[in-house]
């Protein structure tokens, strides 16, 4: 093979070098021109830390402007994926150092579309001690940072918990359902109660800030190249609740363990108190919810997460006699002077003997006295007289067996049995005709919620108007706009003014009459109208009912109370109602204004400041 000359060889050498040089230049062209935009974005993601700024959640006030639910500063721990070489090990180490159980990295990273340079929230609302430990070990824990955020601050000991529910991070299922509403992974969301119902008002809109960060994670200050977006705070809500009344009712029901109380302003449908016991501490949900705590809440046989006011369905017992009586009067089957067979403590229907609660009997009573003394024998006969069809028709038209439409999630409708219902339950015609006998005294298959009873009694009080019960009184938007909520008129009770007048008089007598069953609810300066009830409970002690309104002439409050496994309505529930009415009506008198202002100063900020 011929040897190349130096000329030829130098040309070959230059040729090879040029070829490689052109390759390098093409590479540079590819990186700096064709892929420039992509690399610019990566470079920014590199050094700009996107810090989401959570919007301050709207505050909750009571009807008098007392601050109930607010926000407090809290610490969240974040991790920056690319700074953690071995996530599994790092998390194990972290969980050991902080003495906390953590989700696994793969769980946290699943569904994360964010850049691995951006922090991902690991834990919300950790305590200050944990932050101290974190800070001490910060050199051994690269890629773990913390940030000050806000957490919800609820009144202690679960007070009012069934009103507002709680907030927690949005779940995956909720995210897919509500993503069109602008929720993003990691957002807080109301899970129950007012927090859930008015989440769209309370949550506001998150903002974002951009920080310049070195490779070692040192923050150099705001990144000048991007404008931060401040968060839009959520709207504040003034509830219809009277916190003093609510507190009194909560502590009274709590004495008996479990039960519910609903107080309504009969003129507007505003809920004055909504009590369900046992309650739960919503503060538990703001940060690290320990499995043990959740297990305890979920498996508690008393179901503290259940809002009994709208999710507890009970037989209304004797409180329903007022409805049966009204149905009888309105349909013309009886008048106030109609007499039935004498009460001797029991009466046979078909081949079964139905007993009165008073074994020695009531004698022969008129309608008024039968209500006042709650004679079962009278109402068995009245029920048979009216018949199932008509009775259930009146109950339905009084808005039982359907949702009241209160502004809280997961309300139950209860059951008003009809012929069709029994046909379905027992088979067509295979049920005894005497079922109506039991229904007439509010026992058997009829189920109502305390809320429905309160709405019904409020309607009796206000002359027959069914007002939609609601919890929101005023909304104050961050721009200062105020929006007053209006109670909606759902309909009328199917009773004439005359019938309503008789009902009212009977209820007054049931409390104030010499032989009234509700005498424990008597107030010295105010006439109370009400009806006791004692619901038979096959699983244990009877449930005590009391439903009432006051003052009878000009009703300002209607109440429904059920206390579980506590015994007689007259002895257990009626005194609670009396305390509640006393508390609320005293507050309504002008003379107590001074005391209220003092309380505002002590315990919270007045509305509007």
């Amino acid at each position, binding site marked *: *093979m011929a*040897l*190349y000359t*130096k*000329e030829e*060889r*130098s040309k*070959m*050498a*230059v040729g090879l*070098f040029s070829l*490689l*040089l052109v*390759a*390098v*230049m093409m*590479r*540079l*062209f590819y*990186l*700096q*021109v064709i*892929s*420039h935009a*992509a*690399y*610019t974005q*990566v*470079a*920014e993601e*590199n*050094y700009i830390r996107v810090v989401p700024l959570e919007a301050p959640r709207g505050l909750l006030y009571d009807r008098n402007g007392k601050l109930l639910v607010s926000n407090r500063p809290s610490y969240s721990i974040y991790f920056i994926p*690319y700074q953690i*070489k071995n996530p599994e090990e790092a998390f194990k180490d972290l969980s050991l150092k902080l003495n906390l159980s953590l989700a696994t990295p793969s769980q946290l990273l699943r569904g994360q579309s964010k850049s691995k340079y951006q922090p991902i929230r690991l834990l919300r609302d950790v305590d200050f001690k944990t932050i101290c430990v974190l800070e001490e070990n910060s050199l051994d824990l690269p890629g773990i940072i913390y940030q000050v955020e806000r957490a919800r601050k609820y009144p202690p000991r679960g007070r009012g918990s069934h009103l507002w529910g709680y907030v927690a991070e949005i779940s995956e299922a909720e995210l897919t359902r509500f993503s069109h509403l602008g929720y993003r992974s990691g957002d807080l969301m109301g899970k129950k109660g007012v927090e859930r119902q008015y989440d769209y008002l309370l949550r506001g809109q998150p903002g974002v800030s951009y920080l*310049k*960060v*070195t*490779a*070692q994670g040192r923050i*150099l200050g705001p990144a000048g190249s991007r404008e931060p977006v401040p968060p839009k705070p959520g709207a504040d809500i003034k509830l219809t609740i009277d916190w003093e009344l609510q507190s009194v009712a909560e502590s009274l029901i709590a004495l008996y363990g479990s039960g519910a109380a609903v107080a309504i302003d009969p003129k507007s449908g505003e809920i004055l108190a909504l009590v369900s016991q046992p309650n739960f501490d919503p503060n538990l949900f703001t940060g690290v919810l320990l499995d043990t705590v959740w297990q305890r809440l979920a498996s508690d046989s008393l179901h503290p997460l259940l809002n009994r006011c709208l999710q507890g369905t009970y037989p209304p017992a004797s409180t329903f006699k007022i409805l049966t009586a009204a149905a009888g009067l309105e349909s013309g089957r009886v008048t106030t002077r109609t007499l039935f067979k004498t009460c001797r403590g029991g009466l046979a229907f078909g081949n079964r003997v139905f007993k009165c609660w008073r074994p020695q009997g009531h004698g022969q009573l008129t309608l008024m006295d039968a209500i006042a003394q709650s004679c079962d024998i009278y109402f068995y006969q009245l029920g048979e007289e009216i018949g199932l069809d008509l009775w259930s028709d009146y109950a339905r038209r009084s808005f039982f067996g359907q949702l009241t439409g209160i502004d809280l999630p997961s309300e139950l409708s209860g059951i008003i049995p009809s012929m069709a219902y029994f046909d379905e339950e027992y088979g067509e015609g295979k049920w005894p005709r005497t079922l109506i006998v039991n229904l007439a005294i509010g026992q058997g298959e009829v189920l109502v919620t305390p809320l429905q009873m309160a709405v019904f009694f409020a309607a009796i009080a206000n002359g027959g108007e069914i007002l939609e019960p609601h919890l929101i009184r005023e909304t104050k938007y961050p721009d200062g706009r105020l929006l007053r909520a209006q109670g909606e008129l759902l309909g009328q009770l199917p009773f004439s003014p005359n019938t309503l007048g008789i009902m009212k008089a009977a209820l007054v007598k049931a409390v104030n009459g010499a032989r009234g069953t509700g005498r424990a609810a008597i107030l010295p300066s105010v006439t109370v109208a009400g009806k006791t009830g004692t619901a038979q409970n096959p699983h244990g002690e009877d449930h005590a009912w009391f439903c009432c309104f006051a003052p009878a002439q000009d009703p300002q409050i209607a109440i429904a109370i059920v206390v579980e496994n506590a015994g007689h309505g007259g002895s257990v529930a009626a005194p609670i109602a009396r305390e509640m009415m006393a508390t609320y009506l005293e507050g309504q008198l002008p003379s107590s204004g001074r005391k209220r202002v003092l309380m505002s100063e002590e315990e919270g900020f007045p509305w509007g400041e």
Partner: protein
Amino acid sequence: MGRIDRYLVLPALLLSLLGIVLIFSALHGSSVQGGSLYLRQMIWLAVGLLVFVAVSSIAPRIYENLSSLFYLVALLLLILLFFGGVSRLGATRWFSIGPLSLQPSEFAKVAVILLLARYLANRERPQFRVRWAAFSFLMVLLPALLILKQPDLGSSLVVVAVVPGMLFWGGMPITHIALLLSPVVSLLAAFHWLSWAIFMLVLIVTLFVVRPTLRFALWVLATNLAAGIFTPLVWQRLHDYQKMRILTFLNPARDPQGGGYQIIQSKIAIGSGGLFGKGFLEGTQSKLAYLPARHTDFIFSVLGEEFGLLGCLVVLILFSVIILRGVQVARKARNHFLSLTAFGATTILAFQVLVNVGVTTGLAPVTGLPLPFMSYGGSSMLLSWSLIGLLCLVSYTWQEY
């Protein structure tokens, strides 16, 4: 001082000064000590210029006569390094002389050029013997292994890479050089039997076309077969972490946190620079320390980020001027020894520039080679200017002639 070839010195000086500017920018605002490294680089440039003057002033004969001695001294220094060297980041590459530290491997590069030049200069015949090539490789094997042991993969690659360049210039047919290097390709191709089979087929066809001596042909076949058979066997016996290292070496994106991190960050720096760059001191990748080794091996990434494609092209053109002039000087050199010396020096410069830029742009795996004249470091600066000195020396003899 008449030995200054402006086509060599001017671009080298411009590159050195630009290097100082980039080092200033790369470390601007970092720790007190780091922020002043550009000042030290200025001193290194001054020392480099002195070395340049010295190297270009010595009579060419002396280099030719003392080449064996240089080689032995280089070997000795490399061996002494294991006893008296300074370790940094797990590598023992430096001797410290007062506040300065020097890498003997840089000196070894020059020594290898001179020894090879002398060896091949005496063998200028119409028929190039394969035996000479084998002997050339043997000569660099010892320093290359010593450097690899430090460990300094980049420098030992440079020492080996200079051999085929000088063999080519010494008259070995390019096809024979290719055959000589074929076992390396076999090694890589053997990771899949099909690619290896195809390569062997091509190799055999090439042997029939090129028709080397029977002995050489047999040697080529034997080494290729050995590479092809042993690679998979050795591979299977490697530990997982060893495999990971090699795979990361070949494909850095496999391990974005480890070795791949450097290349990814470098590509981001260069890519985000765009046409005209982010501006002096405006590079976020380098300023905020996302770019590793930004003042040494990855100085080109700082250039790409702050001065864009335009700055990169200017630098590459300056390097091209030096290299093309180097080839020209080699071509016109007075005698064969000087010609080979010039070509060897040019080969080293070209190799380091292409590999360094190739690494920073993600074309080549990370090897740890500095960019001549520009990367921070005294040894690299002295080597670069020594090579310019040698080239100027040769250029002078040509101009004089």
